[in-house]
């Protein structure tokens, strides 16, 4: 079994796994299970990154993204209690709209895909990307991404500060809005 065949086989294994987990994310009646399935999908994506030769990206994916989902889960449990963790079946109408939209999007993508020449991975660069990505992020020259790096820090700061301000526990209903900020 050549490395190429192995990579191909691994790809198909993870692709199958990823898609079936994704199906569970959008279809499972239990939200908790859907969230766990999303962790699985993100894990599969980490494997994809590794297959493509981006080991650093795979590591980040597992550490940050999958870790982030744990936070999401904690919030989820705090927030919606046991009752709301159960999801109803979508009504036939919603189901139809969803299927049409999803299938439509997929078909259009296939159509676009057909116009693109196929290509194969040129060869594994596993492990060689860490330094390259790090350099790109901190390079202040024409090849670097220091500006978006700063932008994303502003974005995260704004999201965190604003998120906390909006979500902090205050019983607004009990106070006139003018004084609500004292609580």
């Amino acid at each position: 079994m050549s490395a190429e065949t192995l990579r191909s086989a691994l790809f198909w294994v993870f692709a199958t796994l990823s898609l079936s987990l994704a199906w569970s994310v959008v279809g499972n009646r239990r939200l908790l299970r859907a969230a766990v399935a999303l962790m699985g999908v993100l894990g599969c994506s980490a494997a994809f990154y590794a297959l493509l030769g981006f080991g650093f990206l795979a590591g980040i994916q597992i550490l940050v993204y999958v870790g982030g989902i744990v936070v999401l889960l904690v919030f989820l449990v705090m927030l919606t209690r046991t009752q709301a963790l159960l999801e109803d079946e979508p009504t036939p109408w919603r189901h139809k709209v969803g299927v049409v939209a999803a299938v439509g999007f997929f078909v259009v993508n296939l159509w676009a895909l057909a116009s693109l020449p196929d290509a194969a991975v040129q060869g594994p660069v596993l492990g060689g990307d860490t330094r390259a990505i790090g350099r790109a992020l901190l390079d202040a020259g024409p090849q670097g991404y220091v500006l978006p790096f700063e932008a994303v820090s502003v974005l995260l700061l704004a999201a965190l500060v604003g998120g906390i301000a909006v979500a902090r526990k205050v019983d607004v209903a009990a106070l006139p809005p003018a004084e609500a900020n004292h609580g």
Partner: protein
Amino acid sequence: MPTLALPELLVLATALLVLVADLFVDDTGRKRLLPIALVGVVGALVALVALVPDSGELLGGRFAMDPLGWWFKLALLVAAAGVLCLAQPAWQGQGTVDATLPNRGEFLAILLFNLAGMLLVPSARDAVTFYLALETATMPLFLLVAWRRDAVGAEAALKYFVVGALASALLLYGLGWLYGLTGTLDLALMAARLPTTPAAYLAMGLVLGGLGFKLTLAPLHTWAPQVYTGAPLPVAAWLGTASKAAAVAALAVVLYRVAGPHAAAWTPAVALLAALTMTVGNLGAVVQTNVLRLLAFSAVSQAGYLLVGLCGATRDGAAAVTYYLVVYVVTNLGAFAAAAVVHHHTGSQELSAFRGLSRRHPLLALAMMLALFGLAGIPPLGGFTGKFLLFSVAAQAELHWLVAVAAVNSTVSLYYYLRIVRQMYIEPADAAAPQTPTAFLPGVALAVATVGGVVLGVVPWFYETVRVAAARWP
């Protein structure tokens, strides 16, 4: 030179200052944070006008200023200053309970962070910066809409969030396709390498769709009415002015910088979208009884007019769009400021709150009327000149049907703008209506917006300068 990014840096510094200061002051001090933020924004505005050249590069070309970008930033900073002015009574808890804003420093900080993201949009030269600037220009808005933390605002914000997140995911996917098709994230290189395959249509469609959400192009506008009414009024004004300006800047980047060489291919699509958007916006506005819903739909139709100028990707079009954008921001700011003042007095967003306003507050009513006439495009206000320029771009592109549709729409729009004028000037005044004087800063904003709307239309210097800038635009 670092001065090139001085406005952005000043805005960020003010945001951080406000955020930190908020930790150390009591409620009285907190009320002073808004003037501080305003000083920061005005400082950035002064810096832009006085110090920043209208072209140059930083970071090896990753951050660039160009002549039209300069005008976009001017519009954004003007919008920010105006919104901060009209937020003053709400911020200080004056007026009716309904119209107050929980005054936390975070509000100002997030607004300024948001502004910094918007300012970055016209300077982006690669897809990564472009995407992150757009996200920074969008995501804080979801939180600002919910800032009053009541049920109405939360519901509006959630819907805004769902549609907005979907739009940004589609935009991202489209950028991914562009990357795949061209093998680069550099926007200029993308333009050079963009093929004309179905994949390219998909990519451009996704990107335009994602941006169309921000610019409220029909049918991606459906979120707007509820969000405008659910949000605190200053935030609605922010959405109606700055957010639109950032979206136009982004659209100009995509259509001119990336897809400019293929203008012939996308012009019919943009023209149809423009016609659809202005028609849907106008028809929606006709039946409204809530002023903010009316202004929301009016903003939708204005987005349609703006899109008219992009047809054909000509320099005249770029000049017309930029000029009309500045006019639109100033004029709409006037309308929102008047709506905000009335909202403060009466706590109502209904049309009937404007009853007999001309007798209670003649100057306020006059300002509102001039703003509405400006939006309707009555000469000699800037709205007329701008629309005239936009329509003539379409005529130049041989899109006679679009000119006709736009002209019909601008006539229909008069119908609902006159409904507000009617309330102000014709309906008898409500005896119970309060006679509160207009607060200082909103008054300043109103005066500047009103005078600006007239001056922009009458003094040729502005359009001339924009046109010269467009001629030098790469």
